[in-house]
């Protein structure tokens, strides 16, 4: 693994990142350093700017302002160094769905300049581990949500990146597929690589991640190890609700007619 060399530096360094869509500010000045070799969770409610941030970090969206460095290389000035070192699984973008699962991996790996025989070997192993071997000759357009996430993950892992960015990798995924994805990711980080993934499922983040950044309304509200972010709160969920200012919103007595005996 090459990640040993960069273990001391940050995997991702973001400075003053801004993005506006018309009147709406999606990302409002983010400064963040994500440590290498960690399982990192980017959490926040819907519309917090997680996808926009990940798109800018991975070079799929041009920021209005700010800089992004991945393993010490600027994403916009040195794309050659960055694109070979990262794997991406975006949310809301298609795959080449008219290829079969195996063809998609073969295409993706060869496009990255890996030798054909090596691509095919890795593809076979990834398809096996991700439980897609039986569907490898089916077109991706006929895949279920979970299968699509898994084939996307396989494509993102194929070139053995140092940093893996996953946008909502567990969204709409059944428990069995989720467990498979989890197993692969845990093995991957255990070897020293970095995983950055976004989610709004706190239990998941709490059980998977050792480092967390909390986003809300385009800003980072807190970041650090899981213990630091959780602080005094009973769970990450509780800490998160307090951070984004939704903690005190109790349903209280407003719905006191709901449930109970008399209708």
């Amino acid at each position, binding site marked *: 693994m090459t990640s040993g060399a960069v273990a001391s530096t940050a995997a991702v360094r973001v400075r003053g990142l801004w993005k506006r869509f018309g009147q709406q500010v999606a990302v409002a000045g983010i400064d963040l350093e994500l440590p290498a070799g960690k399982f990192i969770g980017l959490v926040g409610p819907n519309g917090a700017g997680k996808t926009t941030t990940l798109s800018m970090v991975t*070079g799929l969206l041009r920021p209005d302002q700010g800089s992004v460095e991945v393993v010490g290389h600027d994403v916009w000035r040195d794309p050659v160094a960055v694109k*070979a070192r*990262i794997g991406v699984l*975006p949310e809301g973008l298609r795959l*080449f769905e008219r290829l079969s699962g195996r063809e998609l991996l073969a295409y993706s790996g060869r*496009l990255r300049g890996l030798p054909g025989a090596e691509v095919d070997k890795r593809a076979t192993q990834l398809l096996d581990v991700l439980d897609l071997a039986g569907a490898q000759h089916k077109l991706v357009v006929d895949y279920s949500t979970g299968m699509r996430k898994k084939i996307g993950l396989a494509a993102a892992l194929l070139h053995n990146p140092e940093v893996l960015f996953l946008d909502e990798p567990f969204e709409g995924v059944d428990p069995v597929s989720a467990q498979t994805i989890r197993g692969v990711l845990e093995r991957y980080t255990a070897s020293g690589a970095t995983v950055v993934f976004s989610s709004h499922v706190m239990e998941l983040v709490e059980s998977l991640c050792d480092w967390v950044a909390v986003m809300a309304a385009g800003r980072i509200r807190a970041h650090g190890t899981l213990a630091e972010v959780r602080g005094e709160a009973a769970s990450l969920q509780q800490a998160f609700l307090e951070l984004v200012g939704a903690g005190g919103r109790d349903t209280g007595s407003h719905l006191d007619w709901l449930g109970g005996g008399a209708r």
Partner: protein
Amino acid sequence: MTGEANLTPVFVRLKLSLLRNGLRQSAGRRAAYVVSAVVVVLFGALQLLGLIALHGNTHALPVVALLVAVLALGWAVMPLFFPSGDETLDPTRLVMLPLRPRPLVRALLAASLVGIGPLFTLLLLTGSVIAVAHGGAAYAVGVVAVALGLLVCVALARAVAAANIRLLTSRKGRDLAVLSGLVIAIGAQLVNFGAQHLGSSGLSQLDPVADVLKWVPPASAIGAVDSASDGSYGVAALQLALTVGALMLLLAVWSRHLTRLMTSPDGSTLQAAEPAARERTTGGLARLLPAGRTGTVMERSLRYIWRDPKTKAAWVTSLAIGLIVPVFNALQGTGSIYFACFAAGMLGIQMYNQFGQDTSAFWMVATTISSTHDAYVELRGRALALLVITLPYATLVTVLTTAMLGDWPRLPEVLGLSFALLGAMLATGAWTSARFPYSIPQEGYKNVAPGQAGLAWISIFGGMVSAALLSAPVIVATIWANVAQDGDQWGWLLLPLGAAYGATITWAGLRLAAPRTAARLPEILTAVSKG
């Protein structure tokens, strides 16, 4: 057995309710239905009048037989293209009901007779009978013929739908629907050409066709009326029997499929349980292509031409029009050999909006392009994939047109002009792909996402004008070769000249487009991700 008697009115009422409820959904839909109904009835009435006017004409039978055959073809094809048009066509919706096939077939057949389509068919068949019938016996046969013809048409639609219901409710069926407009457009071209051809050379051309068609159901029913008019009652009886036989066969086929559909698990379950799709052979194609990014890009582009319905529709349109225009013009004797360049021009259009054809999957390409060189190789791969089909096709069309016009001395210069034009289209296509990308919605017939129509216009028309300007040197040289006194001797030179010019300009276009592509990856991704 009481259920049997009651089923038919239930289904007819169901069909009527479905029609009524469909209309109740929106005023627009109601208006569309009323307008289409009026148009169909008017059209049907006009046809009826026209056919009545044809009464006594010696060519009445050929015309009528062809008309009925085309009508039957329409009935057979309609359910494949518009599967959602009639919900009672989908028998899987009735699976939960305890119905026996025989009464069900009868009831569904009766329900199918309700609607605009059957009304139009009725008008047309009636007109056809009037056109060919002479004498009381013939009219008596005619009444039977109309009923039989209508039933055969409806049963044909039902049988085709039942046999293909699994296809129609699956993704493949929806893919097929994208192609339907295209088949109709090309069919219209063929009909148009056929009509022109008939107009110029007379209806007697149809006689041999009619000799065959009057034995093919449901046109054989009309054939029977004609035979009865001539007094050949034996032949008439045979033709009627043939029609009845066809009807019985169709009903049997339909009934068998219906039974199978009603007693086996429904389509959605079957699809999930289906064994893994056949192994897609990756070997053959890949081995012929160059290694590295070039071959990888070419392979995917070529696969998409076949597998992606939108891309396929665009290609088939280009291929068909590129062939139809020069060849048909040549057939009619009005053509110029230079029309052969149409093939190159039409196919060159496929280079336009390359990244829009990827949809938002373009991100997979974007994450692997990190230099101008990568972008160049990507664009070159796509251009090469296009050339694999376009070069032989344009050459073939040119040679074919030349052969039909017998103008062999001009072949080299037309080929040269074709290649130059193709090169110019590829060059401008590559450049506009990088500069004016736009989204192609994957659903429906639209080829431009809302709000991007202007972009598409700039891209395609600006590109085509530029392509024409870019190939101006070769056009000028061609004109010179034709106008100058001893220019004819130099005509052959235009082939290598045009080919070299086309290759050079393509290369230049790719070179110019590559840095733009590499620098604008996020902007291109945003532009092609709408819809």
